[in-house]
């Protein structure tokens, strides 16, 4: 390579070369890439074990270039606990969606956080169940139509509840060391999200670290990719504000 040449794109070794199955405009691929780049930059691919969830990213075990474990629905933090307690020398992360983490796996995520398991949890929040065909998620916005809230999520008469804000909820616990919410909606957002993921991995061996990512689901939402990005920025971000909710090292 000559001095003038500049690499503008390279494939992180933290990812396999397998093509992902994600729909056009879906931001799971971006989130995967950020995790993979982090693994590469920290040089920890050979001592990292990832947990794949149940949900649209169920096949994540085929995409990450490190050792992977497929977990049952919602239990990735428990499985990660088993891995990390057995091998504290490994870097351990789970990659989970909103149904997996904030609904069926709510007990597992809260208690893993509260025990201070030395793991990093990457939480992709797109306010819908993608895999099963667009049902209400715990993070679905009020008024948002899904296949199980056909008239829009109604916390009133229909008793469908309000969106759960996981980053804020986990930040009520004393134990976690790093909790942040970032978005993947613009290139600038993505750069910030990358820094957050990297910080989470760097802090992993000091305690529980959590990165929520505001993402989209063009297919589940019935929108084009660019419409979904706009919609997420306008509707989701006000409910799921971007920010750092805990960074004990920085006194937050």
């Amino acid at each position: 390579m000559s001095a003038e040449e500049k690499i503008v794109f390279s494939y992180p070794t933290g990812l396999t070369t397998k093509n992902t199955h994600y729909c056009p405009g879906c931001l799971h691929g971006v989130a995967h890439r950020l995790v993979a780049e982090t693994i590469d930059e920290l040089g920890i691919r050979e001592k990292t074990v990832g947990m794949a969830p149940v949900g649209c990213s169920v096949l994540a075990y085929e995409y990450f270039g490190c050792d992977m474990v497929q977990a049952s629905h919602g239990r990735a933090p428990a499985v990660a606990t088993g891995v990390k307690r057995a091998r504290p020398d490994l870097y351990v992360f789970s990659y989970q969606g909103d149904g997996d983490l904030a609904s069926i796996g709510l007990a597992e995520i809260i208690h893993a956080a509260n025990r201070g398991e030395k793991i990093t949890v990457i939480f992709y929040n797109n306010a819908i169940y993608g895999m099963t065909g667009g049902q209400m998620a715990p993070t679905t916005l009020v008024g948002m139509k899904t296949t199980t809230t056909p008239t829009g999520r109604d916390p009133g008469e229909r008793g469908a509840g309000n969106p759960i804000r996981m980053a804020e909820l986990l930040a009520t616990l004393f134990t976690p060391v790093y909790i942040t919410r970032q978005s993947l909606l613009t290139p600038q957002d993505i750069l910030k999200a990358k820094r957050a993921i990297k910080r989470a991995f760097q802090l992993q061996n000091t305690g529980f670290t959590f990165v929520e990512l505001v993402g989209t689901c063009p297919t589940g939402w019935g929108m084009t990719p660019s419409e979904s990005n706009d919609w997420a920025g306008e509707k989701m971000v006000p409910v799921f504000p971007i920010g750092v909710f805990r960074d004990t090292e920085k006194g937050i």
Partner: protein
Amino acid sequence: MSPRIRIYVGAYGSGKSEIALETALQWAKTREKVAIADLDLVNPYFRSRESLTELARAGVELLAPPGPLAGADLPIIVPQVRGAIEDPSKHLILDVGGDDAGSRALGTLAPYVEGQPWELWMVVNNYRPFTSDLEGLRATIERVEGSARLKVTHLVANPNLGPDTDRDLVEAGAARIAGFAEALGVPLGAVVMTADIADQMGVTELYGVPVIRLSRRLAPAWYEDPSRLSDSRDRRAQLIKPPLMR
């Protein structure tokens, strides 16, 4: 010749995928570059992607998730679908999932479809719940149009009761759906029936629209079995009889 993009929507179990397949195979006889896209994200069974071999033999391109993902319980729209929508040389049939839940996938693509020549055919079986009367059908169309973000241009009459379908049933159903079409101000696009009933009736057209002859491709072999026996209706009656009454 009808526009190069034909979209099929309808309630769950209305027969969309069968008709989409049949249309693709018919088009392949008279048109170049025919493709069918499987947008059925909702129901992992009986999807058009299962007829891969037959489509390949007819020269129809199937746009569906590759390999093992075809059997996955994952809502996948392959990027080639948008490419085909925007390619003026392609004749594209979109097989959309059932009801408004299924047609949300179409909403993702609606802005690209809008600039192209297209028709949206809604398959109606008056022997199914929710579409057996005019009000139910009107509500279903509204739901589907809401999530598809496109208007229904035609109704397709597909009156049937599965293996128990006979000529009388088809004639009565087609008349009823033709009435719905008139009441709604949406033209009828076609009437669908199995090949043997079409032969019995000796028709290739009905209510001024073509008859689509169906040879139930997606139903698994066991599904046909009861009707091959002498009298499936009697069989069913026996099964329904409460065991304690005997």
